[in-house]
Every structure is written in C-alpha cells, then in structure tokens.
C-alpha cells in the first residue's frame, strides 16, 4: 500500500502536532523516506514540492544532503516554479565545500543569458549568496554584460553580484571598475546604492582605485545634498528622511575617500555640516543618518569646528531616551576619547550619569569612558563618582571599576594621603575584586609616605577592626600594623577620631585574623609576621606573642609552620638579634607604574655629562660676553677663542651633534615653574625650537598666563599660540608654548622673557633674561 506523501502544509501541521522530540523525529523520518523515493522515481512535476518539504525539515536541523542533486535538476528545469525552489535549495544546501556546487555554474550561465528577468534575478541572487571563487571567475563576463542592460531590476542585482565577486576574487576589480563612472549617473536608487557599495569595495582593496574614485566626491556630494535638501519621493523615504539607506552608504563612501586626504575632506566639510544640522532626529532613522555623519566627520581630515560639532552630537545622543542611541554614542565617544580628549571632556557630567544605566553593556561603556576622562584637574570629583558607583555597581563590573580607580589614583593622585584614602576605600568596598598587585602597590605607597605612617596605620586598624573578611585589606592592614604598630599606640592624629588602642586589643585583632576561617594562607602569613614584628614595637612583655608563635609551630600549613618555627627559634636562641631582624623595612625598589618615574630620571641623568661640558664652554663664553653685554648688539665671536672652543669640543667624551639638549628651568615663584626644552631639527641647522612649559604645584590656579619673549636683532623669533592660559593648581595640566627661532648666522642666543599672570588673587609680572642657555641651542 502506497501511503501518499503529505503536502507541505500538512507536513508542517503534523510536525507541529508532535508532542515529543521522538514523535517529531518519527514523522520526519517517515516523510524523508517518501521524499527520497519521490526523488528517485516520482513525478518530476512534483519535485519542487518534495524539495520544499525537505528544506523545511532541514531548517529544523535534520539532514538533507540527499536533496542536493535535486536542486540541480530543478534549476535546470524550464519551469519558473522549479527554478525558484531549486535556487533556494542551492542557497540553503550547497556551498563551496560541496563539489556539487560547481555543477550549477552552467545553469546559472544559461539563465543569465536568457533574458527572463525574474529568472536572471534568481540566478544572480544565488551567485551572490553562495558563489565560490571558481564560479565567480567563470561567470564574471556574464555579470559584466548585465551591468549595462536596460532593466534596472537586473542591473541592480548584477552590481551587487559584482561586489560579491570582487570579495571572492579581488582580481575581478579590473572588470568591474570601468562601468562605475557611468553607473553613478543613474537615477534609480537601487542602482546608485549598488554602485556606491561596489565603489566602496573597489576602494578598500586597491589604493589606485581609491585615488581614481576621489574625483567622484563632488558628484556624491551632489547626490547627498539633493537627498537632504530637496528630498525625494515618499517611495524612498522613511519618516521624512529621504532614502536613509542611500544616505548612509554615500556617507560611508565619502568617509573612505576623505580619509587621510586633505583636499577631499575639505570639499566635504560644508555638506557634512549641512547633513548634521538638517537631519530630523525625532526617530531612529534620522539618528542613523546622523550617526553615520558623525563617524565620517571623525574619520576624515575635517575642520576642527566640525569635529567639535560631531562630538557634541554624540553628547546629545547621550541624552536620548532611546537606549540604543545612547549605546552607539558611548561606544563612539570611547573611540574618540584619546584623539579628541578636550571635546569629549565637555560631556563628562553626562557620561558619569550614564553609570546609572540599568543595561550592563551601557554602564560598562560609561565606566570605561569615565575612567578615560579622569585627569589631573577633575580627579577628585571623578573619583567620588566612581567610588559611589563601585559601591552599587553590578558584580561583573566591580573588578574593572576597582582596578580602573586604582590606576587613575596612581596617575593623578593630588596628594599621598588622598591616594591612600582612595585605595583604602576601594579595598573596603570591593576588596575581593582587586588585582593581586594592589596589596603590593599599597604597601609600597604607604611605606614611601613617611609622614603618613601614623595616619595609615590608624585608618587600616579601624577598617580591620570592622571587617576581617576582605583579604587584600586584611593583608595590607596586617602588614601596616606590624610595621608601624608603635605609631598606632602612640601617634595622635587629630583628623581621625582619637581611639585609645590598647596593646592587647591589637594583638587580639591579629590573632583573630590568624584564626579566622575566612583568612587565606597568605593572609595568615601576614598576620603571623606582623605579630612577630610587634614583639619589638610594643612595650608589653611578649608572652602572648610567644604563645601564638609556638602554637603555630605545629600548624598544618607548611609555610606557616616554617615561619612559626623560625620565629620561635628567634625568641629562644637569637633574642639578641631579634630587634635588628625585625626593624622597619626599607622601601623596596619596584617596577610597574614607578617605571615612568625611573625612565624619566634616567633620561635626565644621561645628558648630565654633556651638561658639564656645556658649562665649561659657557664659562668661556661668559668671559667674551661680558665685553658687550647689550641685547641689541649681538657679540661677535673672536676667531682665536673660537679655536679654543673647538679644542674643547674635541674632547673625547663630547657628545655627537644630535644629542638632546638638556632642559632648563628658568623661573620659579611660589610653586609656579617655567621650563625650557630645546630642539635643533637636524634637517634645518638654523632653526631652534624652544618649548616652554609652565607648571603649577601650588594650591591656587594660575590664570591669564601670557609669556612674551625677545631675542637679539640678528635672530628671528616666532611665537606660536600657547596651549592655554590657565595652569590649574596642584599639578594640573601645564601650559605649553612653542617658540621658533631662526639663527642662520649662529649668533649666540640670548633670550629675555616677560611673564604676566594672576596667582593667589594677585597679578604677577616678571621680566628676566634667561641665563645659562646651553651652547648647543645656537651653535
């Protein structure tokens, strides 16, 4: 008895009706057997139905490879229904890995050349979805022919197929580049869109193509301008925005063409400003165009004002009620925070607000961005926000937040005490999430801040007394109490609540840590050692300590046992050495973040030998200079002293000419300091660049800072605009300014500076000549 095979609809009904996975499998297996039989010797007219059923079953995850050859047969059929299903099957069941896929090449070739549009459409669609490199090579000419056919339906598909072909076989760029220029004049949106996509693909693969297509920038600009200003038919519009898909694609292409190319970028400035200001932002579609505009502005060589506009648009996005828009804004700002730091800084308050986002991917980005925006002048305010965030943030962000805070604190801590307080707060709030080196960093920091030992040990003791569960905190506290236990009992510190701490309490606390099941072995080690150190720091007798130490001599933990035994021996046999061994530790040399300081120091160390040479030379120069003394008349160098100078310069340890000229501190007053750095570019011996750097370590900001300079008449001086006029207090961002001095005659350099600024509420004016200018700056 032949059980008739089901129609597609019925099959689907039956599968959906199955109550268990096993039942479903049964139904499908039965039907697949039918399908197989039908493929073998069933009615060819119904083949397409069988394949459709098979494709449905395939989507549910069942094997369907036996249908591959059927796809080929259906594609080769002359009936449109067959072709439709056959090509669909090919896209779903065949791919480059199957050898069978090449067999459809001929069918595709036939279908492309027969001129029936829907059929050509199917063929092109399939080719662009699963066409392998081989297929693309074989069919490139066919597709090229179709690019110039009259029917836009076929042309637009041919263009996108060309895109796919170039992705598979980059060499085919040669075939598809020439038609682009003409295609760009088309008015059909689909063709334009495809062409722009094609041009993008060509440009990204070949610098010549990129150069070639730069000349269409004006044309692209015109198309975009028309879309934005006069609009187009409603057919292509979404919520009043004219063909946003086309706009976005044009913007992307402009981005590629304008990147690293001043001229092209300049022609786009106006247009981009226009798009940025004219686009309706009430719905997602307008914002999508706006977003693409921002991306383009930031990636090309756009005018500074335009860049600020773009960042401001992103800033506005942050206020948008649509969470998706806030997301793209945060992601983009994160990418821009290094290159356009000051523009992004302006949106810092909004960014900080975004820390409260409920969606973790947004708050994570807000966190990253906030950390990137911390600098010397906002560090206190920012840290407050970030620490508040740390207390309430979701657990998966804790670790990043904690390490971010610690890193920022290291870089920008205004005072050591603030730094210690910050680390302490992080350890108490998120102690379990900090990095391993946080303990080492903090002990290093505290160790180095002698004036803060008493303060630190007090605070750590209080924190420990409240909570002994956070291991990093416990470890640092134990270490500190061990080192500075004497200060804990004696030190009196007004700023913290005066706490009368008894020796017994201290010992009890350490013992508690030692015994607690929450303490890690390492922590126990810290506590034991701390107790031992206290034996020399505290005044009472050491019986209690000795007891503890001896108990731990039989501890199961090897490390602790060994320590305890050693300490016990110290008490019993080497008591005379105990004090010396347990003395306060010297500061340990440390790599890591300190490296910057060390590198700087070594850099400044290297030019030191040259400095001594220079000073010898200067002495000689001074003797000569004393004779003239007037800034108006540059002194002439006598030939014979010149000879003596040459001898000195010939000294074996004299540096070769490109050695860096040492910096010069030329001014200091109440924490305001002025430094000069010198650069002699080797390619222009007459040129001297001086960078003046004004820093401020005082407690009051320096404002309205202006520096003027004068040099002898035979030299030419050019002052560039300073980086700013304000030097914030407490080591805020310095003001820098560049002087360019042309000295073709190598006349001795003399420099007079005039500084005016406001500081501590007073206006300051200083005029002085710079002494000790290094000879290398003008010779």
């Amino acid at each position, binding site marked *: 008895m032949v059980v008739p095979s089901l129609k*597609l*609809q019925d099959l*689907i009904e039956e599968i959906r009706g199955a109550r268990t996975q096993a039942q479903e499998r049964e139904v499908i297996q039965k039907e697949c057997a039918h399908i197989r039989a039908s493929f073998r010797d069933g009615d060819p007219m119904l083949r397409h139905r069988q394949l*459709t059923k098979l*494709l*449905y079953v395939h*989507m*549910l*995850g069942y094997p369907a490879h036996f249908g591959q050859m059927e796809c080929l047969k259906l594609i080769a059929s002359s*009936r*449109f*229904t067959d072709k*439709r*299903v056959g090509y*669909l099957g090919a896209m*779903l069941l065949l*791919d*480059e*890995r199957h050898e069978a896929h090449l067999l459809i090449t001929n069918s595709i070739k036939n279908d492309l050349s027969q001129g029936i549009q*829907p059929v050509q*459409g199917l063929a092109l*669609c399939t080719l*662009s*979805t*699963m066409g392998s490199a081989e297929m693309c090579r074989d069919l490139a000419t066919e597709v090229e022919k179709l690019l110039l056919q009259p029917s836009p*339906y076929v042309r*637009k*598909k041919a263009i*996108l*197929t060309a*895109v*796919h072909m170039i992705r598979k076989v980059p060499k085919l760029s040669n075939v598809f580049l020439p038609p682009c220029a003409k295609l760009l004049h088309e008015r059909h*949106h*689909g063709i334009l*869109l*495809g062409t722009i996509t094609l041009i993008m693909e060509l440009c990204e693969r070949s610098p010549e193509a990129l150069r070639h297509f730069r000349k269409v920038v004006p044309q692209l600009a015109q198309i975009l301008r028309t879309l934005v200003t006069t609009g187009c038919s409603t*057919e*292509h519009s*979404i919520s009043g925005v004219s*063909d*946003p*898909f*086309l706009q*976005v*694609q044009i913007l*992307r292409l402009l981005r590629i063409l304008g990147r690293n190319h001043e001229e092209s970028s300049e022609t786009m400035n106006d247009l981009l400003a226009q798009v940025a200001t004219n686009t309706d932002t009430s719905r*997602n579609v307008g*914002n*999508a165009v706006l*977003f*693409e505009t921002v*991306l383009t502005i930031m990636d090309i060589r756009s005018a500074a004002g335009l860049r600020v506009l773009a960042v401001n648009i992103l800033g506005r996005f942050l206020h948008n009620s649509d*969470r*998706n*828009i806030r*997301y*793209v804004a945060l992601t983009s700002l994160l990418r821009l925070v290094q290159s356009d730091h000051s523009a992004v800084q302006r949106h810092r308050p909004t960014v900080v607000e975004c820390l409260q986002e409920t*969606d973790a*991917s*947004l708050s994570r980005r807000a966190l990253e961005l906030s950390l990137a925006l911390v600098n010397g002048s906002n560090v206190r305010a920012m840290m407050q926000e970030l620490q508040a965030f740390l207390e309430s943030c979701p657990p998966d962000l804790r670790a990043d937040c904690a390490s971010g805070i610690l890193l920022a604190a290291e870089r920008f801590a205004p005072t050591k005490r603030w730094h210690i307080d910050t680390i302490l707060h992080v350890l108490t709030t998120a102690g379990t999430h900090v990095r391993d080196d946080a303990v080492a960093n903090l002990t290093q920091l505290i160790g180095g801040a002698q004036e803060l030992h008493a303060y630190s040990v007090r605070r750590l003791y209080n924190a420990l007394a409240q909570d002994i569960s956070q291991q990093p905190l416990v470890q640092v506290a134990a270490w500190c109490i061990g080192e500075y236990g004497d200060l804990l009992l004696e030190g009196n510190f007004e700023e913290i609540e005066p706490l009368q701490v008894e020796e017994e309490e201290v010992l009890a606390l350490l013992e508690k840590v030692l015994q607690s099941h929450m303490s890690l072995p390492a922590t126990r080690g810290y506590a034991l050692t701390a107790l031992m150190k206290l034996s020399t720091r505290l005044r009472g007798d050491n019986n209690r300590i000795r007891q503890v130490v001896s108990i731990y001599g039989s501890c199961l933990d090897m490390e602790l046992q060994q320590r305890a035994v050693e300490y016990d021996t110290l008490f019993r046999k080497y008591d005379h050495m105990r004090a010396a061994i347990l003395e306060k530790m010297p500061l340990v040399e440390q790599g890591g973040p300190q490296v910057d300081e060390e590198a700087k120091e070594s850099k400044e160390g290297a030019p030191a030998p040259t400095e001594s040479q220079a000073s010898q030379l200067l002495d000689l120069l001074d003797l000569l200079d004393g004779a003239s003394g007037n800034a108006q008349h540059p002194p002439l160098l006598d030939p014979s002293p010149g000879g003596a100078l040459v001898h000195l310069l010939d000294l074996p340890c004299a540096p070769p000419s490109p050695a860096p000229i040492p910096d010069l501190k030329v001014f200091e007053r109440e924490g305001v300091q002025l430094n000069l750095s010198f650069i002699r570019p080797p390619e222009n011996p007459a040129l001297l660049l001086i960078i003046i750097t004004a820093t401020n370590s005082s407690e009051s900001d320096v404002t309205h800072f202006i520096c003027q300079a004068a040099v002898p008449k035979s030299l030419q001086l050019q002052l560039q605009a300073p980086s700013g006029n304000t030097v914030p207090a407490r080591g805020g961002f310095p003001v820098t300014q560049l002087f360019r001095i042309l000295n073709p005659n190598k006349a001795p350099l003399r420099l007079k500076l005039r500084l005016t600024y406001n500081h501590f509420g007073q206006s300051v004016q200083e005029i002085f000549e710079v002494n000790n200018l290094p000879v290398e700056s003008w010779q």
Partner: protein
Amino acid sequence: MQFMLLFSRQGKLRLQKWYVPLSDKEKKKITRELVQTVLARKPKMCSFLEWRDLKIVYKRYASLYFCCAIEDQDNELITLEIIHRYVELLDKYFGSVCELDIIFNFEKAYFILDEFLLGGEVQETSKKNVLKAIEQADLLQEFQKVH
C-alpha cells in the same frame, strides 16, 4: 551583513540566511549559541550586543526575534531600519503578518528577503519595487502552472 536569523521565543529557527560560507556544523553551533544569548537578554536591554568579533543587532516583533550579524564598520542604527523594512514587507505581503505565516510559507519569506537584500547588502530601497517584483514572480509561477 554576515547572516540573518529569525527564531521564536522557544528558540525554534524560522529562517536562516547566511551570506558567508560556513559548514553546516558551524552554522548549527553559531545558531545555537546566538539564540541562547539573545533569548537570555532582558527586555530593557539595548538591541545591540558584541558576540565573538561581530556586532549583533536584534529586535523582537511579537513572538519572533529578528537577528542580524554585522561587521565592525557597519552602522547598527541603520541595521535596525533594515530589519524594520523587512518586517514591513512581510506585513504588506501577508497582510498583517504573524509567525504562523512565516512558518507555513517559509519559502515566500526567503523570496521576499532576496528581493530586499542581495549578498548581504540592501539592493532596493523602495518598498513598492520590492513588492512589485514579488508579485511578478508569483504571477509567473501561476502562469506556468496553468500551462
């Protein structure tokens, strides 16, 4: 676009369009993982997520999730518009589309998608033109049936 997946709230696949060559096994793995990831998202979360080295844009329409994987330089916001346009096309074709339409006429869903996107790129920005093309193809199919 690298691929588009449509799946139900129970994780059943309703459409899969791949624009990059991957083995069946890889496709299954990606589908399984991505479906799990997207279904685990809470309703108040944004429509974008980073997954492997791709950006995923998804949106739920009634009981169906529409999920696209785009590349780093692609614009997420316009991808949302692409998804929306596809849903509008389905809606127009089926007349107030629901998941069942897409289940029982899955091949039509593919045909419509193939008139809107090609090789992962938008090929036609006019709704009218896309629907017209489908209409013509359907007519041709009917016409050949009779003869």
